[in-house]
């Protein structure tokens, strides 16, 4: 599965995109990535939970329009982290 990071997260992951082998839901995927990259958790989460200024897209669909963090992701999917503050 392909993961795409915005520039700000790329400062932590040192890459803008990558292929990972994973299947499970979005929540598990995030845990998996936070294991892989120390420092990622600190950006993705704050006191109130998952950072509301980051939107997650699975195959270009906002997970809030899918099953949220329980959205299942699999081999050929693309998961993108995109900043929320833009447009209008």
């Amino acid at each position, binding site marked *: 599965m392909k993961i795409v990071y*915005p*520039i*700000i997260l790329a*400062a932590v992951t040192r890459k803008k995109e990558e292929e990972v082998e994973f299947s499970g839901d979005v929540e598990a995927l995030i845990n998996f990535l936070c294991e892989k990259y120390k420092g990622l958790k600190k*950006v993705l989460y*704050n006191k109130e939970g998952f*950072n*509301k*200024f*980051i*939107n997650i*897209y699975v195959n*270009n669909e*906002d997970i*809030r*329009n899918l099953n949220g963090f329980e959205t299942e992701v699999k081999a050929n999917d693309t998961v*993108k982290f*995109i*900043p*929320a*503050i*833009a*447009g*209008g």
Partner: protein
Amino acid sequence: MLRCMICKKEIEDLPSYICPRCFGPLEVVYDWEQIKERVSREKIERGVESMWRYKDFLPVNREPVDLGAGFTRFIHAKNLGEILGLKNLYLLDDSTNPTYSFKDRVVSVAVTKALEFKMRALGCASTGNLAGSLAAHAAKVKLPTYIFVPAGIEKTKIVQAAVHGANIIEVEGSYDDANRIAMEMAENNPDWGFVNINLRPYYVEGSKTLAYEAVERLDWRSPDQVILPMASGALLTSVYKGFQDFIKVGLTDTIPIFNGAQPEGFPIVRAVREKAEIKPLKESQTIVHSLAIGNPANGFTAKDIIEETRGYAEDPSDREVVDSVLLLAKTEGIFTELAGGTVIAALKRLVEAGRIDRSEVIVAYLTGNGLKTADVFLNEFSVRKVSKYEEVIAW
């Protein structure tokens, strides 16, 4: 300098819109002591007749790219007021801006910043009005422009952008899909100025002038209430900041009650009414394309402002919007875009619900020109055809 609205981290003046620490929105920081020294009523009154009479309050360090936006008509709407039961209803009418919507105010600042940052191209995601405005300003500064619009927006709006030479990319899906693609473009092309993405902190500042103008036109007093259209919520948020700015420098002393208007079912109004979190809307049906943003970036700030000032938000139906455009046109001689119809329809609801007193001073913001959405009215009237004078008198 820019500062994160959430964690307050400060970063230098750059084409950047999100905090590198917490992803929160960035805003421009000003030196208010210095501005207070520099400004006065008299100085502003002697200034140019455009939004740039308030240059001291805008974040630019060079000669602005000014097509003449702002300082538009400010009207005491006695006829409409009489019908609605309001003695002091004022309309700030931005339909006469250079490209016929309020977007010229924000674009003027953003494009000036793009020149400061020596950007190679310009871009945006647009529900229509921004497209026309950006394309015109880009033509003036001779920069190539890439505009992402949702499929199905008014052809008249794309034509406007196209005649100025913009590259227009229609995105299958909604505005939010167009916005997502524009963001990915901005991420991968840091030397392109996407006015409502990587230039967003500067861009939004332009709308503050809508607050300044209302105060100046009301003889240096704030109105009791304002009502504004909302798509992303950026406009309402900036107008609020505008009143705050004028308080900081002593040019007015109160913040009005803020009311917001969206098409039926849209998320900011729903969240205000239900006292809940903003929940993005995926599919929408409305004819008010200019306000059809399902995932509003500034929804949370707009909602906070409405709640804090004890205002309210309304989401009239498309029919109410059309009727309100007609009512305004027939009482005040102003043909407004559907966003303006949404504002008047929402205002009517607020008055009926007893949220506005008869003698309060209220400013309703009309943000676009009716000819942009004239299509909607083609079925609202009929014309008679004749070939001879006799037929006219017979009728």
